[in-house]
């Protein structure tokens, strides 16, 4: 029997993973659809606000908006709109929710990218060293610290960072993305790039100093997770036969660790890094609220407290979609670097 080619196998693998996402996405749309109908007050009352409305006009609006039809008709209507990118309008700003999300997303992206870079740059080397130097003082100290980081209530951690670095040392600003003195034309929406493009002097420095504390606060838990996972992956790999062989044939320790052990230890770590995206987005809700960072996390909290439920609904959908997409990419990457998964049915 002929074995199917690698390309076909890969394609089948990718398609099967994407196929699994369809029911999940439909499930998320059901949740988002039900959300607006489950919150106290009907959609018309939410739109009108506290003022009140006479029953005739209420009934007219219900009919007008198609809310008097059976729920499944409404759901398919909603699904159709979602698939066309129409997530409704915000009650507060009257802007399309999708556009608001797109406008605010770069701020969250910038914050998350820096938080994750911080987490990887610190967590990975610590994990490798702790694994290699198992049982030493360094190992114990770094693992205690990372368990502490893992247990950290980041909303408190953020406040402590503000007290120390902004309050006592006066090194960094308390909140926001950039000093109010600067006006920077939004080009990419990423403040660091936009400030470099603008000719405002000192704007870039201001943007960096605003970014540091929130990125550290947000990156702390992922850093701890990455350090712990890297250590245990290193320990596992260092026990493998091929590492013993490499050592036995007299390769220098740095080469054994760097080439033979690390490359294999990184496979599970890549997955863990990918899975931090959900953690980052949840953390962004708290971090952005504390640092008044104008991203989607703060937008969601504000929308909930303003009872701007269409925005919450749209945000919920888009964030779930984002998490699912990143998980899919991580899954595919994992299959790509680890052939054992790719060929498993």
């Amino acid at each position: 029997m002929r074995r199917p080619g690698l390309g076909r196998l890969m394609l089948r693998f990718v398609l099967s993973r994407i196929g699994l996402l369809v029911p999940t996405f439909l499930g998320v749309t059901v949740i988002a659809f039900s959300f607006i109908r489950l919150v106290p007050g009907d959609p018309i009352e939410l739109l009108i606000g506290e003022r009140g409305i006479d029953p005739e006009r209420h009934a007219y609006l219900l009919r007008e908006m198609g809310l008097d039809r059976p729920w499944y008709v409404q759901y398919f209507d909603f699904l159709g709109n979602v698939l066309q990118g129409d997530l409704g309008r915000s009650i507060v700003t009257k802007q399309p929710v999708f556009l608001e999300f797109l406008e605010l997303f770069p701020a969250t992206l910038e914050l998350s990218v820096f938080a994750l870079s911080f987490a990887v740059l610190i967590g990975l080397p610590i994990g490798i060293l702790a694994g290699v130097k198992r049982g030493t003082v360094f190992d114990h100290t770094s693992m205690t610290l990372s368990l502490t980081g893992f247990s950290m209530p980041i909303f408190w951690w953020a406040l402590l960072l503000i007290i120390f670095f902004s309050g006592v040392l006066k090194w960094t600003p308390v909140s926001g993305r950039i000093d109010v003195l600067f006006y920077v034309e939004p080009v990419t929406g990423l403040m660091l790039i936009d400030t470099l493009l603008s000719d405002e002097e000192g704007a870039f420095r201001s943007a960096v100093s605003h970014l540091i504390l929130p990125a550290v606060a947000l990156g702390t838990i992922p850093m701890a997770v990455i350090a712990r996972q890297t250590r245990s992956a290193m320990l596992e790999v260092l026990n493998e036969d091929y590492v013993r062989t490499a050592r036995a044939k007299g390769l220098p320790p740095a080469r054994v660790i760097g080439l033979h052990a690390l490359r294999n230890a990184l496979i599970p770590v890549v997955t863990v890094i990918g899975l931090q995206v959900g953690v980052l987005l949840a953390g962004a809700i708290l971090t952005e609220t504390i640092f008044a960072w104008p991203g989607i996390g703060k937008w969601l909290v504000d929308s909930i407290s303003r009872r701007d439920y269409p925005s919450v609904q749209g945000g919920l959908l888009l964030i779930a979609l984002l998490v699912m997409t990143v998980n899919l990419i991580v899954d595919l990457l994992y299959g790509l670097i680890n052939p054992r998964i790719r060929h498993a049915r």
Partner: protein
Amino acid sequence: MASIAETNRISKAPPGPLREFWHYFRENHGAVAGLAVVLVLVFLAAFADVVAPHSPFEQYRDAFLQPPVWQEGGSLEFFLGTDATGRDILSRIIHGSRLSLLIGCIAVTLSLSVGIALGLLAAFFRTAADALIMRLMDVILAVPSLLLALVIVAILGPGLVNAMIAVAVVYVPHYVRLARASAMTELSKDYVTASRVSGAGLFRLMLITVLPNCMPPLIVQATLGFSSAVLDAAALGFLGVGAQPPTPEWGAMLADAREFILRAWWVVTFPGLAILITVLAFNLMGDGLRDALDPKLKRS
């Protein structure tokens, strides 16, 4: 003679499961420390009325924002200082331990029992029910936990009880997946087939034959889940949709304290420290439990 008799007695009876467990658990110093902290917390929560020097709600009008005892202006009467309305921070933290332990217990019990029920269902009926349950769990996992909890609280309304429910729902998928996976492993073993052949009914198979053997990973997850529940409930309190003021819940206390962070560090520091210590203790204990209950690691 006595010593020989002693040796004989020990060699005859293998150590009981509890003793064996303690033997392995004790080796992990962090876990023992975690357990000690948890016991202290339980004690504080149980006797908060006696232990706390003041009422958590009493406002001392001559002591607004008084610093802790070791700082200038502090007094022994308010050991960790007072908040902006003159309430004793130490007493509020001690009373807060009640709420945090209660939140953890209820949220974990809820999600553990729902998770076990759904997980066993999925493992025993590997058909439409399995697919439906697991896809539903995928949906819950696709939304970041805190966001989902916020959305649930928006539906149910803010408050401590609703925050607990929200936190419980968010963590159900972890238990479902674990229970299903371990139940499926157990189902393929001979003792289950034997029990089935000798005529055990469905509920007997589920709850008496299979479930006890699935418990170790679930217990570990429940301990770690306890810390996540405390953390998330505090986050909801901090965002103002969990426990409502003047409840001395640690997250809500932090929310109250936010505006004073640059003027009165103690108002912010101590409630957060209490959260950190509690969460850390449960995580340490969970790690120790995993080592003690995981047979694969035991042998090494």
